[in-house]
C-alpha cells in the first residue's frame, strides 16, 4: 500500500515565515552574540563611542558583519513581530495591513541602516565632526527617551511583581503559568518584542555617527548612568535568552521524537545558561562605572 494522497504544500507564506525564522535565527545566534561580545563583554557600552566605532569600521569585514547583522536582525525581528501581531490583531482591515506595515518599516530602517554603514567614513568619525555637530538637543532628546523607556520597563516589572504577589496571596491558581513551556513561550515573545524595539532605536542612534559623532558620544556616555544599569542588563539578558531559546525551538523542530521529553529540561538549561552568560556582562558594566 503506497502513501500517495498527500503532497507537501511547499512554501506557503506561513511556512516561508516559519522556515525563515529558523534559518535566520540560527545565523543570528552567531551574529548577535558576536556583536554583544564586542559591545558588552570586551568593552562596556558607554565606551563604544565614535572612536571605538571608527576603529571597527576601518575594517571592511566588520562593516560586512554589521550589515549582515542589520539585514538579518531586521528581517527576523519584523517577521517574528508579524506573527505576534497576528495573534492579537484579528479585525480584517488591520490584520491585512500588518505585512505591508512590516515591509514598509523594514524597508525604511534597512535603508537608514545600510546608508549609515555604506557611507561610513572612519576618518570623519575620528575627526568627530558632522553636519549636525553641536546639536546637543538631539542627544538630550535621545537620553530623555532612554530614561523614559527605563522608567516604563521598571514600572511594568513592578506591576508584574505586585500582580504575582496578589495572585499568590489570594490563593488564585497559577493556571497555565505552572508549565515551563508557557514561560518559555512568553519570555521568547516578550524578549523578541523588546529586542525589535531596541533594534529600531539603535538603527536611529547609529545614524548619528555620520551626522554628529560628538552628539553620538554624548548619548553613549549617558549609558553609564546608574539608573540605566538594570535596562542594560535586561537588554543583554533578553538577547541571550532569545538566542538560546531560539536554539531550543530549532532543536524541538529537528528532533520531534524527543521534543516532549526534553523541552522542559532544555528550558531550564536555557535559563541557567542565560544567567551564567549574563554575569560577566554585569561585571563589565559595573567595572565601567555604571
Amino acid at each position: 500500500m503506497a502513501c500517495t494522497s498527500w503532497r507537501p504544500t511547499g512554501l506557503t507564506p506561513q511556512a516561508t515565515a516559519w522556515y525563515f525564522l529558523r534559518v535566520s535565527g540560527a545565523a543570528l545566534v552567531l551574529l548577535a552574540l558576536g556583536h554583544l561580545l564586542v559591545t558588552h563583554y570586551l568593552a562596556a557600552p558607554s565606551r563604544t563611542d565614535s572612536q571605538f566605532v571608527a576603529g571597527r569600521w576601518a575594517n571592511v569585514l566588520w562593516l560586512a558583519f554589521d550589515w549582515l547583522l542589520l539585514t538579518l536582525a531586521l528581517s527576523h525581528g519584523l517577521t517574528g513581530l508579524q506573527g505576534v501581531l497576528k495573534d492579537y490583531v484579528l479585525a480584517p482591515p488591520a490584520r491585512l495591513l500588518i505585512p505591508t506595515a512590516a515591509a514598509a518599516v523594514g524597508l525604511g530602517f534597512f535603508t537608514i541602516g545600510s546608508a549609515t554603514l555604506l557611507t561610513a567614513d572612519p576618518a570623519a568619525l575620528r575627526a568627530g565632526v558632522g553636519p549636525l555637530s553641536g546639536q546637543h538637543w538631539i542627544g538630550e532628546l535621545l537620553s530623555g527617551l532612554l530614561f523614559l523607556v527605563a522608567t516604563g520597563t521598571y514600572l511594568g516589572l513592578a506591576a508584574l511583581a505586585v500582580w504575582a504577589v496578589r495572585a499568590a496571596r489570594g490563593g488564585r491558581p497559577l493556571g497555565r503559568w505552572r508549565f515551563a513551556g508557557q514561560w518559555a513561550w512568553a519570555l521568547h515573545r516578550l524578549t523578541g518584542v523588546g529586542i525589535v524595539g531596541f533594534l529600531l532605536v539603535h538603527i536611529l542612534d547609529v545614524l548619528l555617527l555620520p551626522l554628529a559623532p560628538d552628539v553620538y558620544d554624548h548619548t553613549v556616555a549617558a549609558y553609564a548612568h546608574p539608573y540605566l544599569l538594570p535596562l542594560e542588563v535586561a537588554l543583554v539578558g533578553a538577547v541571550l535568552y532569545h538566542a538560546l531559546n531560539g536554539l531550543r525551538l530549532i532543536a524541538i523542530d529537528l528532533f520531534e521524537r524527543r521534543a516532549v521529553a526534553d523541552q522542559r529540561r532544555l528550558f531550564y538549561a536555557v535559563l541557567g545558561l542565560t544567567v551564567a552568560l549574563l554575569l560577566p556582562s554585569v561585571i563589565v558594566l559595573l567595572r565601567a562605572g555604571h
Partner: protein
Amino acid sequence: MTRAAAPGETVELRVRRFDPTTDRRPYWARYEVAVRPKMSVLDALFAVLEQQDGTLGFRYSCRAAMCGSCAMVIDGREALACATRLARLGRRITVEPLRQLPIVKDLVTDLEPFWAKWAVVTPYFVGGRYREPAVIPPESGRREIIDAQLDCITCAACYSACPIVASNPRYLGPAALNRAYNLIADERDTAAAQRLAAVCGEDGAFSCRNAFNCVEVCPQGIDPQRSILRLRQRALVGA
C-alpha cells in the same frame, strides 16, 4: 498545596459561577464538602448539587474518563472532573469552566467554536482508493506514527490550555491539528492533500508556538504538539 483532606474531613470547593441570563459577571461560590473515600471532583460537585445548591450547572456523561464531557479547570489546570480524585488536591479546591469557550452556565461551556475548528480539517476518514476493508495490519510499523495519537476524546482541555487560542480565536488549536495529522498520516485516506492545505495556511500548524500546554493537560496522554511538528515537516518536505 496543603495536605489533602482525609475521608470524613471537609474541603472547600470554590466554584466559578456565571449565568449569562442573570449575572453581570462571573463570581466565586464557596461550598464545604464532606470527603468520602476515593471521591472525585465530579462526586464533590454532585454532593453540592444534591445537598446544597440545586442550581449548580456542570456537564458529565460516562463518569469513566472516556467521553470528555466533564473537562474543566481544576486548581488552574485542565482536567476531567471524574478522573481527578480529591486525594490529589488540597483542602481548598478551585473549579472553573474551560477557557476560550462561551459559558452556557457555571461549568458548562458551549463547544461550538471547538467543533467549528474540528470541521475545518475534514475530521473523518475519506476512503475510496482501496477495496474495503482497507487494513493496515496492527503489527505493521506503518501504524506507529498514528497509533499513539488516536485516542483523543475531544474534551477540549488542550484547546482551553493553549495560549495561542487564548489570544487568537481563529487558531485551529491542538485537537483539530492532531486530528488532521492522524488522517494525513493514514496511508489509506484520500483527502490528505486538501486537509494539509487547510491546516498549513493562516492560523494553522505554523501559528503554533511550541508552548506544550496541550501535552501537559491532555487527560489521554496524547502529544498534539508532536502532531503539529510533523504537520509542518510534511507541509515543507513531506518527511
